[in-house]
């Protein structure tokens, strides 16, 4: 029997963020329904909130929330690029433009909204665009190519996002707003003034109280906007982003109830006037209001999914508090931002030197927080939101909450929050959920994140979550022991600082001052690495030699049979035929197994300890240097062939890779470091899977950081765009030194980033804005390491005392009889145990 006949049929019209969230919620509820998705756009749902990131280097794929495969995997029947055009309510069928018919038992409308274009003469010019979809972005990009000036009509949240996009496209950008201030819905007049000041400092011109009367052809520019006050503005293109209107035409035609000014009317169960049809997201009108933010849309989606799963589910309105970054400016709005509540009081703090503005709106007795505005500094947002959402009584002097921290007002401790307090608003995780996860056995921040998804969205709550988890674990008597090992009651980061501040230059000194016992195989190499990062003495100097892992001691990589592999540096993967011949000759002479590595170098295996100096003498004579494949240090910087040869390359990626590799070679770090440079956005060098990756643009270089391949792949984050050579290098210098200073032992940059409070934003502040005032110091320290670089192998070959160690036996010239090779595919490999027994028997 066809199972679809017995299954309940759910049809979802619209595949935006909210439509997708609904499908995901329903699939998770495992209701066994047959789900059909009808999407107008040619692609599955994507993150519209971060649309402007596409102009900052993120690809459309990066924004995707789902792929066709996601839906296939869920058993969802998904159709894209074929919009629904009619609902036949009697027959319970949805009809699409291509004439396909989908029968439903329950229908969910998630048709979203469209950008409002004011009815201005000339607004139909083909240089007038809207900003809503990925296709809109394509159109904006195409027009921007032939434009110098761009205007955004609309100074709200979306308008400013869009202005960011135009600015990223290199246009002289203007924002034109009808109202007297920017973001008039979310923030008050004072906040709006500060926002304007900050945005104008970024060379975006702001024009408020402007009523566009018509758009005509310009003289020097393509267009001219004429305003009601008889002023005008010359521009090459215009993007309308002046608010949204619900897409309710489908509902109107089906004669569902709609509001006077649009929007499909829903009740608290998100039901429309037809009990089998729901509406969610920006197309829905609840309590006379359209909720134009994604979080309330998600709550509606969850409410419907929950009902379909035979559980309670309702939408009771949603808090519209929001925290965001517009054109790089932090803006926060909570509750009654304008102080319109009767009898309310306000506290305002404005600092024009630091460019920040904060306002609190409280009840008349000063005990309850009713609203807040934050511009330029959102650090207090989380605390204030908790006061607001949970009705927590304010301290006697509420103004302390927004005054600079030096005034000593304690932040609201997480322990003061009730269990219902929302910690993570992206995933709707409450304090109670977190406590439940810990009661259920989670013993660390990472486990709590995995269990609850808290802090895996925007990451804004990471600091609060961390302190909550630490408090709760502490309360249960679980102490989080961060000691490196039994010899040092410190983390690697703390030891680094102790060594740096105290100018400690040896393990013995450090152990005497800050540790106990004799050390071990954990702390010795860690301290050796710290010493190398700080002072860069030869790793085989007598004070350091006993600290090194065998790979560092013998400057080669130990293999399973006790032999070593040798990897000379081939910077950027570029090698002359002459040098290739040398590698071949050395491998032939010493009978080594050869293999090309993933990092564009050549690995020579099977070298005996006592052969290493002779092998390296030949390599050094031919101009090779050590490749540090054995160290927790910079390995390789891969490159594609770049603009020198490639038809598509826009910069010399090989040249840059060689320059970077030669700069950072020998740098000791908490774990190995890998990098790559690609010559264009095709990204053939796979830079986005590296600790730091560089991708050429027409204007310079984009820098990506904290990527990883390997066991736990992580896509690198775009850190900065269109950098010139020197800026690129200074950012990488600071980034690497900051990582070396602050990471844990054996913590790759990817994990370091995932654990860094404040994430990439914090890192940008430290590295680009120099918020800690240490940028010069980080660069100076890198300069020391670069200037004191020595090829460890070359130095070792020149020192008979160091060479003495490269003997299998101190009292004999015999080789290690435990090393036995067999042949495979014309090369050697270590004999397996049974082969070894056979070979030894034959020899006897």
């Amino acid at each position: 029997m066809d199972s679809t006949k017995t299954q309940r049929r759910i049809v979802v019209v619209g595949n935006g963020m909210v439509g997708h969230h609904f499908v995901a919620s329903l699939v998770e509820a495992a209701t066994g329904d047959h789900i059909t998705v009808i999407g107008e756009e040619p692609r599955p749902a994507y993150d519209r909130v971060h649309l402007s990131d596409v102009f900052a280097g993120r690809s459309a794929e990066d924004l995707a929330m789902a792929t066709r495969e996601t839906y296939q995997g869920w058993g969802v029947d998904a159709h894209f690029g074929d919009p629904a055009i009619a609902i036949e309510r009697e027959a319970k069928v949805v009809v699409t433009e291509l004439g396909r018919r989908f029968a439903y038992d329950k229908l969910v409308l998630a048709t979203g909204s469209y950008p409002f274009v004011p009815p201005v003469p000339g607004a139909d010019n083909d240089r007038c665009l809207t900003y809503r979809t990925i296709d809109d972005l394509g159109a904006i990009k195409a027009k921007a190519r032939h434009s110098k000036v761009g205007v955004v009509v609309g100074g709200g949240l979306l308008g400013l996002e869009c202005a960011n996009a135009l600015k990223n496209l290199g246009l002289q950008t203007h924002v034109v707003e009808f109202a007297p201030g920017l973001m008039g819905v979310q923030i008050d007049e004072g906040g709006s003034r500060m926002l304007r000041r900050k945005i104008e400092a970024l060379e975006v011109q702001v024009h408020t109280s402007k009523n566009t009367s018509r758009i005509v052809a310009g003289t020097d520019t393509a267009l001219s906007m004429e305003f009601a006050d008889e002023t005008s503005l010359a521009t090459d293109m215009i993007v309308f982003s002046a608010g949204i209107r619900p897409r309710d035409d489908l509902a109107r035609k089906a004669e569902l109830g709609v509001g006077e000014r649009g929007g499909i009317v829903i009740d608290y169960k998100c039901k429309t006037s037809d009990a089998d049809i729901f509406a969610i997201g920006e197309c829905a009108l609840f309590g006379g209001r359209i909720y134009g933010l994604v979080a309330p849309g998600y709550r509606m989606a969850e409410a419907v999914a929950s009902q379909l799963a035979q559980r309670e589910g309702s939408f009771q309105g949603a808090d519209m508090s929001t925290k965001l970054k517009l054109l790089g400016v932090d803006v926060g709005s909570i509750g009654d931002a304008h102080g319109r509540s009767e009898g309310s009081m306000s506290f305002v703090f404005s600092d024009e030197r630091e460019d920040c503005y904060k306002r609190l709106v409280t009840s008349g007795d000063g005990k309850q927080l009713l609203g807040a505005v934050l511009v330029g500094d959102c650090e207090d947002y989380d605390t204030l939101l908790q006061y607001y959402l949970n009705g927590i009584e304010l301290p006697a002097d509420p103004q302390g909450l927004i005054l600079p921290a030096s005034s000593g007002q304690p932040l609201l401790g997480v322990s003061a929050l009730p269990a219902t307090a929302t910690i993570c608003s992206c995933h709707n995780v409450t304090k109670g959920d977190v406590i439940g996860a810990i009661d259920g056995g989670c013993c660390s921040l990472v486990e709590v994140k995995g269990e609850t998804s808290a802090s895996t969205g925007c990451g804004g709550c990471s600091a609060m979550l961390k302190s909550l988890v630490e408090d709760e674990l502490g309360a249960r008597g679980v102490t989080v022991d961060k000691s490196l090992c039994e010899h040092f009651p410190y983390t690697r980061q703390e030891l680094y600082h102790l060594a740096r501040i105290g100018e400690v230059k040896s393990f013995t000194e450090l152990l005497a001052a800050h540790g106990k016992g004799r050390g071990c195989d954990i702390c010795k190499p860690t301290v050796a690495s710290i010493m190398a990062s700080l002072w860069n003495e030869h790793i085989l100097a007598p004070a350091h030699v006993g600290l090194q892992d065998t790979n560092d001691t013998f400057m080669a990589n130990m293999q399973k049979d006790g032999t070593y592999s040798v990897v000379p540096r081939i910077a950027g993967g570029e090698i002359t035929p002459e040098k290739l011949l040398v590698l071949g000759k050395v491998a032939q002479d010493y009978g080594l197994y050869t293999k090309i590595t993933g990092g564009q170098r050549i690995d020579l295996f099977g070298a005996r300890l006592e052969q290493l100096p002779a092998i390296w003498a030949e390599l050094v004579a031919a101009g090779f240097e050590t490749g540090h494949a054995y160290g927790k240090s910079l390995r390789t910087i891969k490159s594609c062939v770049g603009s020198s040869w490639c038809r598509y390359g826009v910069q010399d990626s090989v040249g840059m890779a060689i320059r970077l590799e030669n700069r950072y070679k020998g740098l000791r770090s908490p774990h190995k470091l890998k990098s790559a440079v690609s010559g264009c956005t095709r990204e053939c060098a796979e830079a986005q899977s590296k600790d730091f990756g560089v991708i050429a643009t027409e204007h310079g270089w984009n820098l990506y950081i904290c990527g990883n391949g390997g066991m736990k792949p992580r896509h690198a984050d775009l850190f900065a765009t269109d950098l010139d050579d020197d800026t690129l290098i200074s950012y990488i210098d600071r980034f690497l030194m900051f990582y070396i200073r602050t990471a844990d032992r054996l913590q790759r940059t990817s994990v370091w980033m995932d654990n860094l409070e404040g994430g990439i934003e914090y890192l940008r502040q430290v590295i680009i804005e120099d918020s800690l005032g240490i940028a010069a110091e980080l660069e100076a320290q890198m300069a020391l390491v670069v200037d004191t670089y020595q090829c460890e192998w070359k130095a070792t070959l020149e020192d008979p005392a160091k060479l003495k160690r490269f003997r299998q036996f101190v009292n004999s010239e015999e080789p290690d009889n435990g090393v036995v090779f067999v042949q495979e595919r014309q090369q050697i490999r270590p004999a397996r145990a049974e082969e070894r027994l056979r070979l030894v028997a034959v020899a006897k």
Partner: protein
Amino acid sequence: MTAAEKYNWEPLCKREDLVAGSGVCALLGGEQVALFYLPDEEPAIYALGNRDPIGGANVLSRGIVGDIGGELVVASPLYKQHFSLRSGACLEDEAIKVEVYSVRLDGDSVLIAR
């Protein structure tokens, strides 16, 4: 007669062959002996079989020396198990033990008991 005098002490190598705070390997007949020289300890020299019984390669002399809970140990460079320098016992697996040799320093010579 002291304990030391009961053995037949045989010269193995020179003190200068040793590396302070670390290990080297010497050949004794057909056997590989890992020698660890810890000048601040009493005694200052220790000897174990060089073969790592877990990894199956002759590498213990190339491990890092230290202590775990006061017990002097070497960590195998292959899979990092710890072996006691005094007893040869593996701290991670009590069923595993490596050979322990009696060694002592005599002036510039390293002597091993046969």
